[in-house]
Protein backbone atom coordinates (compact mmCIF):
# COMPACT_ATOMS: atom_id res chain seq x y z
CA UNK A 1 0.00 0.00 0.00
CA UNK A 2 1.22 3.54 -0.66
CA UNK A 3 2.23 5.53 2.35
CA UNK A 4 -0.21 8.29 3.31
CA UNK A 5 0.86 11.30 5.33
CA UNK A 6 -1.58 13.28 7.50
CA UNK A 7 -1.80 16.06 4.98
CA UNK A 8 -2.78 13.67 2.23
CA UNK A 9 -5.52 12.17 4.36
CA UNK A 10 -6.97 15.60 5.10
CA UNK A 11 -6.93 16.50 1.40
CA UNK A 12 -8.62 13.19 0.62
CA UNK A 13 -11.33 13.72 3.24
CA UNK A 14 -12.03 17.29 2.18
CA UNK A 15 -12.24 16.33 -1.47
CA UNK A 16 -14.60 13.43 -0.66
CA UNK A 17 -16.93 15.77 1.20
CA UNK A 18 -16.70 18.25 -1.67
CA UNK A 19 -17.46 15.51 -4.16
CA UNK A 20 -20.55 14.30 -2.32
CA UNK A 21 -21.78 17.89 -1.96
CA UNK A 22 -21.23 18.48 -5.68
CA UNK A 23 -23.10 15.33 -6.68
CA UNK A 24 -25.93 16.22 -4.33
CA UNK A 25 -26.13 19.75 -5.68
CA UNK A 26 -26.15 18.73 -9.32
CA UNK A 27 -28.67 15.96 -8.70
CA UNK A 28 -31.16 18.38 -7.21
CA UNK A 29 -31.37 20.69 -10.22
CA UNK A 30 -30.19 18.65 -13.12
CA UNK A 31 -32.21 20.24 -15.86
CA UNK A 32 -31.39 23.87 -15.27
CA UNK A 33 -27.87 24.42 -16.49
CA UNK A 34 -25.88 27.17 -14.78
CA UNK A 35 -23.93 29.64 -16.90
CA UNK A 36 -20.55 27.83 -16.83
CA UNK A 37 -22.34 24.58 -17.60
CA UNK A 38 -24.08 26.22 -20.54
CA UNK A 39 -20.79 27.52 -21.89
CA UNK A 40 -19.18 24.08 -21.63
CA UNK A 41 -22.21 22.43 -23.22
CA UNK A 42 -22.25 24.84 -26.15
CA UNK A 43 -18.52 24.51 -26.76
CA UNK A 44 -18.53 20.72 -26.60
CA UNK A 45 -21.73 20.69 -28.61
CA UNK A 46 -20.09 22.70 -31.37
CA UNK A 47 -17.07 20.37 -31.52
CA UNK A 48 -19.43 17.40 -31.41
CA UNK A 49 -21.53 18.66 -34.31
CA UNK A 50 -18.38 19.12 -36.40
CA UNK A 51 -17.31 15.57 -35.57
CA UNK A 52 -20.80 14.23 -36.31
CA UNK A 53 -20.74 15.52 -39.90
CA UNK A 54 -18.37 13.00 -41.51
CA UNK A 55 -20.00 10.19 -39.54
CA UNK A 56 -23.40 11.25 -40.78
CA UNK A 57 -22.02 11.24 -44.29
CA UNK A 58 -20.67 7.69 -43.96
CA UNK A 59 -23.85 6.30 -42.42
CA UNK A 60 -25.73 8.13 -45.17
CA UNK A 61 -23.81 6.23 -47.84
CA UNK A 62 -24.38 2.98 -46.00
CA UNK A 63 -28.13 3.50 -45.75
CA UNK A 64 -28.24 4.57 -49.40
CA UNK A 65 -26.68 1.27 -50.43
CA UNK A 66 -29.10 -0.59 -48.21
CA UNK A 67 -32.00 1.30 -49.74
CA UNK A 68 -30.75 0.49 -53.23
CA UNK A 69 -30.69 -3.23 -52.47
CA UNK A 70 -34.29 -3.19 -51.31
CA UNK A 71 -35.56 -1.15 -54.23
CA UNK A 72 -37.30 -3.93 -56.14
CA UNK A 73 -39.19 -5.31 -53.16
CA UNK A 74 -40.12 -1.90 -52.00
CA UNK A 75 -41.30 -0.81 -55.41
CA UNK A 76 -43.68 -3.74 -55.60
CA UNK A 77 -45.10 -3.00 -52.21
CA UNK A 78 -45.43 0.71 -52.84
CA UNK A 79 -47.19 0.25 -56.17
CA UNK A 80 -49.92 -1.73 -54.50
CA UNK A 81 -50.37 0.99 -51.92
CA UNK A 82 -50.30 3.83 -54.40
CA UNK A 83 -53.83 3.22 -55.60
CA UNK A 84 -55.20 3.36 -52.09
CA UNK A 85 -53.17 6.46 -51.52
CA UNK A 86 -54.88 8.48 -54.25
CA UNK A 87 -58.28 7.69 -52.81
CA UNK A 88 -57.07 8.54 -49.32
CA UNK A 89 -55.53 11.78 -50.51
CA UNK A 90 -58.73 13.06 -52.05
CA UNK A 91 -60.60 12.07 -48.95
CA UNK A 92 -58.11 13.93 -46.73
CA UNK A 93 -58.36 17.01 -48.94
CA UNK A 94 -62.11 16.95 -48.67
CA UNK A 95 -62.00 16.55 -44.90
CA UNK A 96 -59.44 19.30 -44.56
CA UNK A 97 -61.47 21.87 -46.44
CA UNK A 98 -64.58 20.80 -44.60
CA UNK A 99 -62.76 21.12 -41.28
CA UNK A 100 -61.61 24.61 -42.25
CA UNK A 101 -65.12 25.69 -43.19
CA UNK A 102 -66.56 24.34 -39.98
CA UNK A 103 -63.87 26.10 -37.98
CA UNK A 104 -64.68 29.37 -39.67
CA UNK A 105 -68.32 28.74 -38.92
CA UNK A 106 -67.72 28.43 -35.21
CA UNK A 107 -65.04 31.13 -35.17
CA UNK A 108 -62.32 28.87 -33.80
CA UNK A 109 -59.05 29.21 -35.62
CA UNK A 110 -56.45 27.73 -33.32
CA UNK A 111 -56.14 24.05 -33.09
CA UNK A 112 -54.15 21.91 -30.71
CA UNK A 113 -52.89 20.09 -33.75
CA UNK A 114 -51.02 23.01 -35.30
CA UNK A 115 -47.32 23.23 -34.67
CA UNK A 116 -44.21 24.66 -36.24
CA UNK A 117 -41.61 22.05 -37.02
CA UNK A 118 -38.02 22.82 -36.09
CA UNK A 119 -35.63 20.46 -37.86
CA UNK A 120 -32.64 19.37 -35.85
CA UNK A 121 -29.77 16.94 -36.19
CA UNK A 122 -28.69 14.52 -33.50
CA UNK A 123 -25.07 15.26 -32.66
CA UNK A 124 -24.50 12.79 -29.85
CA UNK A 125 -26.03 10.09 -27.76
CA UNK A 126 -25.24 9.80 -24.11
CA UNK A 127 -22.43 7.24 -24.44
CA UNK A 128 -22.82 5.53 -21.08
CA UNK A 129 -26.51 4.87 -21.83
CA UNK A 130 -27.69 4.81 -18.25
CA UNK A 131 -30.24 7.35 -19.30
CA UNK A 132 -31.72 7.39 -22.74
CA UNK A 133 -30.63 10.80 -23.91
CA UNK A 134 -29.70 12.37 -27.21
CA UNK A 135 -28.31 15.82 -27.88
CA UNK A 136 -29.51 18.05 -30.72
CA UNK A 137 -27.73 20.84 -32.55
CA UNK A 138 -30.50 23.40 -32.03
CA UNK A 139 -31.17 25.37 -28.89
CA UNK A 140 -32.82 28.40 -27.35
CA UNK A 141 -31.83 30.76 -30.16
CA UNK A 142 -33.67 28.53 -32.63
CA UNK A 143 -36.82 28.65 -30.55
CA UNK A 144 -36.54 25.39 -28.68
CA UNK A 145 -37.89 25.30 -25.17
CA UNK A 146 -38.00 22.76 -22.42
CA UNK A 147 -40.64 20.00 -22.64
CA UNK A 148 -41.32 20.31 -26.36
CA UNK A 149 -42.18 17.14 -28.26
CA UNK A 150 -39.47 15.53 -30.40
CA UNK A 151 -40.42 13.21 -33.23
CA UNK A 152 -39.32 11.58 -36.44
CA UNK A 153 -41.46 10.95 -39.51
CA UNK A 154 -42.59 7.67 -37.92
CA UNK A 155 -43.70 9.06 -34.60
CA UNK A 156 -42.86 10.52 -31.24
CA UNK A 157 -39.41 9.77 -29.86
CA UNK A 158 -39.15 11.89 -26.73
CA UNK A 159 -39.18 15.34 -25.23
CA UNK A 160 -36.74 18.14 -24.54
CA UNK A 161 -35.46 18.08 -20.98
CA UNK A 162 -32.80 20.78 -21.04
CA UNK A 163 -31.78 23.59 -23.36
CA UNK A 164 -28.72 25.77 -23.70
CA UNK A 165 -28.43 28.56 -26.28
CA UNK A 166 -27.15 26.25 -29.03
CA UNK A 167 -27.89 22.69 -27.96
CA UNK A 168 -30.76 20.79 -26.41
CA UNK A 169 -31.11 17.48 -24.63
CA UNK A 170 -33.84 14.97 -25.40
CA UNK A 171 -34.97 12.22 -23.08
CA UNK A 172 -36.23 9.35 -25.21
CA UNK A 173 -39.59 7.68 -24.70
CA UNK A 174 -38.19 4.45 -23.42
CA UNK A 175 -36.55 6.00 -20.42
CA UNK A 176 -36.50 4.30 -17.06
CA UNK A 177 -37.44 7.56 -15.39
CA UNK A 178 -40.66 6.83 -13.49
CA UNK A 179 -41.76 10.45 -13.54
CA UNK A 180 -41.79 10.75 -17.30
CA UNK A 181 -45.38 11.25 -18.43
CA UNK A 182 -47.06 12.02 -21.70
CA UNK A 183 -50.75 12.64 -21.98
CA UNK A 184 -52.03 10.33 -24.71
CA UNK A 185 -55.21 8.98 -26.21
CA UNK A 186 -56.24 5.81 -27.97
CA UNK A 187 -57.84 6.49 -31.31
CA UNK A 188 -60.05 4.46 -33.55
CA UNK A 189 -62.97 3.55 -31.36
CA UNK A 190 -66.25 5.43 -31.22
CA UNK A 191 -64.71 7.77 -28.74
CA UNK A 192 -61.08 8.66 -28.03
CA UNK A 193 -59.88 7.16 -24.77
CA UNK A 194 -57.57 9.25 -22.61
CA UNK A 195 -54.61 7.88 -20.68
CA UNK A 196 -51.03 8.71 -19.84
CA UNK A 197 -47.85 7.11 -21.08
CA UNK A 198 -45.98 6.33 -17.89
CA UNK A 199 -42.90 4.24 -17.97
CA UNK A 200 -41.46 1.56 -20.12
CA UNK A 201 -41.30 -2.19 -19.84
CA UNK A 202 -37.71 -3.20 -20.46
CA UNK A 203 -38.43 -6.89 -20.93
CA UNK A 204 -41.20 -6.42 -23.48
CA UNK A 205 -39.55 -3.40 -25.03
CA UNK A 206 -42.84 -1.55 -24.97
CA UNK A 207 -44.32 1.59 -23.43
CA UNK A 208 -47.02 1.46 -20.78
CA UNK A 209 -50.23 3.49 -21.13
CA UNK A 210 -51.77 3.90 -17.69
CA UNK A 211 -54.74 5.59 -16.08
CA UNK A 212 -57.33 4.44 -18.59
CA UNK A 213 -60.92 4.65 -17.45
CA UNK A 214 -62.02 1.00 -16.92
CA UNK A 215 -65.47 1.60 -18.38
CA UNK A 216 -63.97 1.99 -21.84
CA UNK A 217 -63.06 -0.94 -24.01
CA UNK A 218 -59.54 -0.60 -25.42
CA UNK A 219 -58.86 -2.77 -28.42
CA UNK A 220 -55.56 -4.28 -29.42
CA UNK A 221 -54.14 -2.80 -32.61
CA UNK A 222 -55.54 0.70 -32.13
CA UNK A 223 -53.26 3.66 -32.54
CA UNK A 224 -52.08 5.77 -29.63
CA UNK A 225 -51.37 9.47 -30.23
CA UNK A 226 -50.45 12.43 -28.06
CA UNK A 227 -53.57 14.16 -26.76
CA UNK A 228 -52.33 17.72 -26.54
CA UNK A 229 -54.08 17.97 -23.20
CA UNK A 230 -50.81 17.74 -21.34
CA UNK A 231 -50.18 21.38 -22.17
CA UNK A 232 -47.14 21.51 -24.40
CA UNK A 233 -47.29 18.73 -26.95
CA UNK A 234 -49.40 19.27 -30.06
CA UNK A 235 -52.28 16.90 -30.56
CA UNK A 236 -52.08 13.90 -32.83
CA UNK A 237 -48.43 12.88 -32.89
CA UNK A 238 -48.32 9.14 -33.37
CA UNK A 239 -46.84 7.25 -30.44
CA UNK A 240 -47.54 3.63 -31.22
CA UNK A 241 -49.95 0.76 -31.30
CA UNK A 242 -51.74 -1.08 -28.49
CA UNK A 243 -50.51 -4.65 -28.13
CA UNK A 244 -52.08 -5.82 -24.87
CA UNK A 245 -54.61 -4.54 -22.35
CA UNK A 246 -54.63 -5.48 -18.66
CA UNK A 247 -55.76 -4.02 -15.37
CA UNK A 248 -53.42 -1.93 -13.27
CA UNK A 249 -51.98 -3.07 -9.94
CA UNK A 250 -54.90 -1.94 -7.81
CA UNK A 251 -57.58 -2.91 -10.30
CA UNK A 252 -59.04 0.59 -10.43
CA UNK A 253 -57.87 1.56 -13.88
CA UNK A 254 -56.75 -0.25 -16.98
CA UNK A 255 -53.35 -0.18 -18.56
CA UNK A 256 -52.17 -1.04 -22.04
CA UNK A 257 -48.85 -1.96 -23.56
CA UNK A 258 -47.94 0.23 -26.51
CA UNK A 259 -45.40 -0.68 -29.12
CA UNK A 260 -43.67 2.55 -30.20
CA UNK A 261 -43.92 3.33 -33.90
CA UNK A 262 -40.63 5.23 -34.17
CA UNK A 263 -37.33 3.47 -34.65
CA UNK A 264 -34.93 4.49 -31.91
CA UNK A 265 -31.81 2.70 -32.95
CA UNK A 266 -30.32 5.14 -35.45
CA UNK A 267 -31.76 8.56 -34.84
CA UNK A 268 -30.20 11.16 -37.10
CA UNK A 269 -32.68 13.84 -38.03
CA UNK A 270 -35.56 14.72 -35.78
CA UNK A 271 -38.31 17.33 -35.70
CA UNK A 272 -39.04 19.41 -32.64
CA UNK A 273 -42.69 20.42 -32.48
CA UNK A 274 -43.35 23.96 -31.36
CA UNK A 275 -47.05 24.20 -30.66
CA UNK A 276 -48.83 27.21 -32.09
CA UNK A 277 -51.43 27.38 -29.38
CA UNK A 278 -50.24 28.80 -26.08
CA UNK A 279 -48.49 26.25 -23.98
CA UNK A 280 -49.57 25.74 -20.42
CA UNK A 281 -47.95 23.63 -17.78
CA UNK A 282 -49.54 20.25 -17.43
CA UNK A 283 -48.53 16.66 -17.24
CA UNK A 284 -46.16 16.98 -20.22
CA UNK A 285 -44.67 20.13 -18.78
CA UNK A 286 -42.79 21.05 -15.66
CA UNK A 287 -45.19 18.86 -13.75
CA UNK A 288 -43.26 15.95 -15.22
CA UNK A 289 -40.87 15.65 -12.35
CA UNK A 290 -43.36 16.46 -9.65
CA UNK A 291 -44.64 13.69 -7.45
CA UNK A 292 -48.29 13.60 -8.47
CA UNK A 293 -49.40 10.75 -6.27
CA UNK A 294 -48.38 12.51 -3.08
CA UNK A 295 -48.38 16.21 -3.92
CA UNK A 296 -46.82 18.77 -1.61
CA UNK A 297 -48.88 21.62 -0.18
CA UNK A 298 -50.02 23.86 -2.97
CA UNK A 299 -51.23 27.43 -2.83
CA UNK A 300 -54.94 27.46 -3.36
CA UNK A 301 -56.56 29.99 -5.59
CA UNK A 302 -60.20 30.63 -5.05
Amino acid at each position, binding site marked *: MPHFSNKKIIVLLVSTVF*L*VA*LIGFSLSNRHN*ATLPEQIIKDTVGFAQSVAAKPTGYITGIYSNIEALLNTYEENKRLKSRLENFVVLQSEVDGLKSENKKLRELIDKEDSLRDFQPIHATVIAR*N*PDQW*EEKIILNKGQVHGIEKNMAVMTAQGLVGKIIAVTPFTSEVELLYTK*NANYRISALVQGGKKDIVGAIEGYDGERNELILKRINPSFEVEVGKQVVSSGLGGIFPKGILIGEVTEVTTEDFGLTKMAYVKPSADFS*MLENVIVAKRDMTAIDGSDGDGTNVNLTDPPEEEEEE
Partner: protein
Amino acid sequence: MFIRLLIPTIAVLLFLFEPLLAMFSPIVIGEQIVFLVPRFLILYLIFIAIYYNRKRAVLYGLFFGLLYDVFYIDIIGLYSFLYPLLCFIAGWSVKYIHQHLVITTVLAVMLVASMEIALYEFFFLINFTPMTFQMFLNNRLIPTIMANLIFLAMLGWAFKYLINKRVLQRAHNGA
Protein backbone atom coordinates in the same frame (compact mmCIF):
# COMPACT_ATOMS: atom_id res chain seq x y z
CA MET B 1 6.43 19.46 -31.27
CA PHE B 2 4.08 17.47 -33.43
CA ILE B 3 4.07 14.37 -31.25
CA ARG B 4 3.71 16.50 -28.19
CA LEU B 5 0.42 17.88 -29.48
CA LEU B 6 -0.66 14.53 -30.80
CA ILE B 7 -1.26 12.98 -27.38
CA PRO B 8 -3.93 15.45 -26.19
CA THR B 9 -5.38 15.65 -29.73
CA ILE B 10 -6.06 11.92 -29.74
CA ALA B 11 -7.71 12.22 -26.34
CA VAL B 12 -10.03 14.91 -27.72
CA LEU B 13 -10.81 12.83 -30.82
CA LEU B 14 -11.64 9.77 -28.72
CA PHE B 15 -13.87 11.91 -26.53
CA LEU B 16 -15.79 13.10 -29.59
CA PHE B 17 -15.82 9.64 -31.14
CA GLU B 18 -17.46 7.85 -28.18
CA PRO B 19 -20.98 9.31 -28.49
CA LEU B 20 -21.01 8.74 -32.24
CA LEU B 21 -20.38 5.03 -31.74
CA ALA B 22 -22.92 4.97 -28.94
CA MET B 23 -25.59 5.85 -31.52
CA PHE B 24 -25.33 2.29 -32.86
CA SER B 25 -26.14 0.84 -29.47
CA PRO B 26 -28.27 -0.83 -28.11
CA ILE B 27 -28.14 -3.85 -30.37
CA VAL B 28 -30.82 -6.51 -30.33
CA ILE B 29 -29.35 -10.01 -30.47
CA GLY B 30 -32.07 -12.61 -30.59
CA GLU B 31 -34.32 -11.84 -27.64
CA GLN B 32 -31.82 -9.80 -25.72
CA ILE B 33 -31.02 -6.12 -25.85
CA VAL B 34 -27.31 -5.60 -25.57
CA PHE B 35 -25.74 -2.31 -24.54
CA LEU B 36 -22.28 -1.53 -25.80
CA VAL B 37 -20.69 1.35 -23.98
CA PRO B 38 -17.60 2.80 -25.66
CA ARG B 39 -14.93 3.60 -23.08
CA PHE B 40 -12.09 4.44 -25.43
CA LEU B 41 -10.96 7.64 -23.80
CA ILE B 42 -10.40 6.14 -20.36
CA LEU B 43 -8.55 3.18 -21.87
CA TYR B 44 -6.24 5.62 -23.62
CA LEU B 45 -5.75 7.61 -20.42
CA ILE B 46 -4.89 4.42 -18.54
CA PHE B 47 -2.25 3.72 -21.17
CA ILE B 48 -0.85 7.21 -20.70
CA ALA B 49 -0.76 6.66 -16.94
CA ILE B 50 1.13 3.41 -17.33
CA TYR B 51 3.56 4.24 -20.12
CA TYR B 52 4.03 7.97 -19.81
CA ASN B 53 3.13 10.10 -16.85
CA ARG B 54 0.71 9.46 -14.03
CA LYS B 55 0.22 13.08 -13.05
CA ARG B 56 -0.61 14.12 -16.59
CA ALA B 57 -3.04 11.24 -16.99
CA VAL B 58 -4.85 12.25 -13.78
CA LEU B 59 -5.11 15.83 -15.01
CA TYR B 60 -6.49 14.74 -18.38
CA GLY B 61 -8.88 12.43 -16.53
CA LEU B 62 -10.13 15.31 -14.42
CA PHE B 63 -10.60 17.56 -17.45
CA PHE B 64 -12.39 15.06 -19.66
CA GLY B 65 -14.35 13.63 -16.73
CA LEU B 66 -15.70 17.10 -16.03
CA LEU B 67 -16.64 17.61 -19.68
CA TYR B 68 -18.37 14.23 -19.71
CA ASP B 69 -20.30 15.05 -16.55
CA VAL B 70 -21.47 18.43 -17.73
CA PHE B 71 -22.29 17.49 -21.29
CA TYR B 72 -23.90 14.09 -20.90
CA ILE B 73 -24.73 13.18 -17.36
CA ASP B 74 -25.69 16.49 -15.68
CA ILE B 75 -24.39 15.10 -12.41
CA ILE B 76 -21.09 16.81 -11.74
CA GLY B 77 -18.54 14.82 -9.81
CA LEU B 78 -19.20 11.33 -11.12
CA TYR B 79 -16.83 10.85 -14.02
CA SER B 80 -14.65 13.72 -12.88
CA PHE B 81 -13.93 11.57 -9.84
CA LEU B 82 -13.78 8.12 -11.47
CA TYR B 83 -11.54 9.02 -14.42
CA PRO B 84 -8.69 10.48 -12.32
CA LEU B 85 -9.08 7.66 -9.78
CA LEU B 86 -8.65 5.04 -12.49
CA CYS B 87 -5.62 6.84 -13.90
CA PHE B 88 -4.16 7.06 -10.41
CA ILE B 89 -4.61 3.35 -9.74
CA ALA B 90 -3.14 2.50 -13.16
CA GLY B 91 -0.11 4.72 -12.55
CA TRP B 92 0.36 3.28 -9.09
CA SER B 93 0.21 -0.30 -10.34
CA VAL B 94 3.22 0.30 -12.60
CA LYS B 95 5.52 -0.47 -9.70
CA TYR B 96 4.06 -3.94 -9.24
CA ILE B 97 3.38 -5.25 -12.71
CA HIS B 98 5.33 -5.97 -15.82
CA GLN B 99 4.64 -3.42 -18.55
CA HIS B 100 3.90 -5.86 -21.29
CA LEU B 101 1.20 -4.83 -23.78
CA VAL B 102 -1.03 -7.84 -23.05
CA ILE B 103 -0.88 -7.30 -19.31
CA THR B 104 -1.58 -3.59 -19.70
CA THR B 105 -4.56 -4.34 -21.94
CA VAL B 106 -6.05 -6.78 -19.45
CA LEU B 107 -5.44 -4.38 -16.58
CA ALA B 108 -7.05 -1.48 -18.44
CA VAL B 109 -10.13 -3.50 -19.32
CA MET B 110 -10.41 -4.76 -15.75
CA LEU B 111 -10.25 -1.21 -14.43
CA VAL B 112 -12.98 -0.16 -16.86
CA ALA B 113 -15.10 -3.11 -15.72
CA SER B 114 -14.74 -2.04 -12.10
CA MET B 115 -15.74 1.49 -13.13
CA GLU B 116 -18.86 0.11 -14.83
CA ILE B 117 -19.78 -1.76 -11.66
CA ALA B 118 -19.25 1.35 -9.53
CA LEU B 119 -21.44 3.36 -11.91
CA TYR B 120 -24.12 0.68 -11.84
CA GLU B 121 -24.13 0.72 -8.05
CA PHE B 122 -24.40 4.51 -8.07
CA PHE B 123 -27.27 4.66 -10.54
CA PHE B 124 -29.01 1.82 -8.77
CA LEU B 125 -28.68 3.68 -5.50
CA ILE B 126 -30.25 6.87 -6.81
CA ASN B 127 -33.02 4.88 -8.53
CA PHE B 128 -32.08 5.65 -12.11
CA THR B 129 -32.17 2.04 -13.14
CA PRO B 130 -34.36 -0.82 -12.01
CA MET B 131 -31.91 -3.29 -13.59
CA THR B 132 -30.92 -6.24 -11.43
CA PHE B 133 -27.26 -7.11 -11.11
CA GLN B 134 -27.77 -10.25 -13.15
CA MET B 135 -29.31 -8.25 -16.02
CA PHE B 136 -26.57 -5.68 -15.75
CA LEU B 137 -23.97 -8.40 -15.98
CA ASN B 138 -25.47 -10.08 -19.04
CA ASN B 139 -26.78 -7.11 -21.01
CA ARG B 140 -24.24 -4.44 -20.24
CA LEU B 141 -21.04 -5.45 -18.52
CA ILE B 142 -19.97 -8.47 -20.54
CA PRO B 143 -20.78 -7.01 -23.99
CA THR B 144 -19.14 -3.73 -23.03
CA ILE B 145 -15.99 -5.49 -21.87
CA MET B 146 -15.90 -7.54 -25.06
CA ALA B 147 -16.32 -4.50 -27.30
CA ASN B 148 -13.67 -2.49 -25.50
CA LEU B 149 -11.30 -5.44 -25.45
CA ILE B 150 -11.62 -5.73 -29.22
CA PHE B 151 -11.02 -2.01 -29.59
CA LEU B 152 -7.93 -2.16 -27.40
CA ALA B 153 -6.61 -5.27 -29.10
CA MET B 154 -6.77 -3.38 -32.39
CA LEU B 155 -5.40 -0.03 -31.27
CA GLY B 156 -3.48 -0.73 -28.05
CA TRP B 157 -0.18 -1.16 -29.87
CA ALA B 158 -0.70 2.17 -31.64
CA PHE B 159 -1.26 3.93 -28.32
CA LYS B 160 1.86 2.31 -26.93
CA TYR B 161 3.90 3.17 -30.00
CA LEU B 162 2.80 6.79 -29.90
CA ILE B 163 3.41 7.22 -26.19
CA ASN B 164 6.83 5.56 -26.41
CA LYS B 165 7.75 7.95 -29.21
CA ARG B 166 6.89 10.86 -26.97
CA VAL B 167 8.85 9.41 -24.04
CA LEU B 168 11.89 8.89 -26.27
CA GLN B 169 11.61 12.38 -27.65
CA ARG B 170 11.40 13.78 -24.17
CA ALA B 171 14.42 11.84 -23.01
CA HIS B 172 16.28 13.01 -26.09
CA ASN B 173 15.47 16.65 -25.44
CA GLY B 174 16.35 16.34 -21.78
CA ALA B 175 19.74 14.79 -22.46
